[in-house]
């Protein structure tokens, strides 16, 4: 899941400086779950903007704003309202903002900050579990990712900063990842894993080759471009 949080309202107003008419786009996917871009938040935003003297020419909440084709269809249906606006305010993750920008020739303002990818690679949502490091260490860590669970991405055991099992960064909410790993390995009777020296990470592997980064959709887009160029 793409985790997002709403930007401060003042910042959003700043984006709209000098513009009077705006069209709002929300998303029923992750943004709704994060309460940053569902119908309720879009309506609330509309009201707040109108309270500041802005005209909202209309709004739409797309099922999955990261689906570019779907966004294109939805906005087509609201063509007149979109055309009447100076800009679009997109209340969702960075992918949604980019998908909107890709199908509308207007300024698209982000209303949110995208925090992390959470479980975007799977259905186990709720928290960030993988940083897509390209060289998985779950074997030595008992199945808990040290890159997301530890604030310093340590791969060879805990720093000296944990207190009562909590991380030195945000001790109120953040468990020490290495404390969790230690407890798990101890339970599995595999503490020997904690004595294996893990070599420095090859961060180059975090940059996947283009062909792996792109999907079948990319191929379709390429084709679209080629057709348009003809």
């Amino acid at each position, binding site marked *: 899941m793409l985790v997002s949080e709403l930007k401060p309202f003042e910042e959003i107003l700043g984006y709209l400086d000098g513009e009077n008419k705006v069209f709002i786009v929300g998303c029923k996917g992750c943004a709704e779950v994060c309460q940053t871009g569902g119908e309720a938040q879009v309506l609330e935003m509309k009201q707040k903007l109108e309270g500041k003297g802005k005209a909202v020419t209309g709004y739409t909440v797309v099922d999955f704003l990261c689906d570019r084709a779907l966004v294109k269809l939805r906005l087509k249906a609201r063509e007149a309202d979109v055309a009447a606006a100076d800009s679009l305010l997109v209340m969702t993750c960075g992918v949604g903002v980019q998908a909107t920008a890709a199908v509308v020739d207007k300024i698209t303002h982000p209303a949110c900050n995208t925090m992390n990818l959470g479980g975007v690679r799977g259905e186990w949502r709720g928290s960030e579990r993988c940083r897509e490091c390209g060289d998985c260490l779950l074997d030595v860590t008992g199945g808990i990712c040290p890159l997301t669970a530890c*604030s*310093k*991405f*340590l*791969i*060879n*055991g*805990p*720093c*000296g*900063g*944990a*207190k*009562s099992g909590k991380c*030195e*960064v*945000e001790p109120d909410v953040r468990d020490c990842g*290495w*404390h969790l790993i*230690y407890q798990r390995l*101890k339970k599995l009777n595999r*503490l020997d894993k*904690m*004595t294996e*020296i*893990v*070599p*420095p*990470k090859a*961060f180059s592997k975090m940059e996947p080759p283009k062909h792996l980064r792109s999907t079948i959709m990319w191929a379709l887009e390429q084709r679209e471009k080629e057709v348009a160029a003809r």
Partner: protein
Amino acid sequence: MSLKEKIASSRFVITAEVGPPKGVDIEEMKKNTEVLKGRVDAVNLTDQQSSVMRLGSLAGCHLLRQWGVEPVLQVTCRDRNRLALQSDLLSAYVMGVENVLCLTGDHVSLGDHPDAKPVFDLDSVSLLQAVKGLEQGRDLGGKELKGSPRFFVGATVAPGADPLEPQILKMEKKVKAGAQFFQTQAMYEPKQFEEFMKSVKHLNAAVLVGIVVLRSAAMARFMNKNVAGIHVPDNLIEEMDKAEKKAAKGIEIAARLIREMRDMCQGVHIMAIGMEDRVPAILDAAGM
């Protein structure tokens, strides 16, 4: 005799710590160093301690050498990637710095530039490995060096951590990766330290027990609450509380701890945190 030779000769060694200034006025740092000169075997130069931006550890070590004191360069993984770390190590060596202490470092969010990008490209274990690699004439990229350095390499451990086991497992890794000596987090409980020393006996590395000089009962309570791996027991806090002359009490406690723990380990590392002028008195009282 260098720190390495002293430790090898199984003499009880004494190290202390000096913090570089936040700025370029080095007068106080010089004063603190003068106080320690002749009384300690080497002085650690902290590397932007607590993630607070300061004068660098490398420049600080260079100054210490000019002032006639053997330095220990503290290096953290927080601010530099593997290129910068290895480069700094080479620079240190050509400047005559032989002792390095490899640390992970506090997270940037705890310091005075919380918005900085934390690096942690390496961790303390891989930093130790990097040092070993340089000594063997190769960098982490596998490339050959033109002349290789020789260091006396240290690391840290928190004998008061709870649970202690992961700390010891990591300490084992550090030894495997090349750590030759350890300076510990502050210890206030000799019994606990004795237990710790028993459980790491097999590691064959010199351990210098850490002493943080107490200023007041409030400071002790603060450390208990906020600093990982430090526990000041109630009876010491009470002692500080009752004492009329806090400074004298802090000196007395530190000296007592050194006396009680000196036979358990190879040396002591005194972290006076701005009270360097009290170190000679502590050493006198401890009979050193």
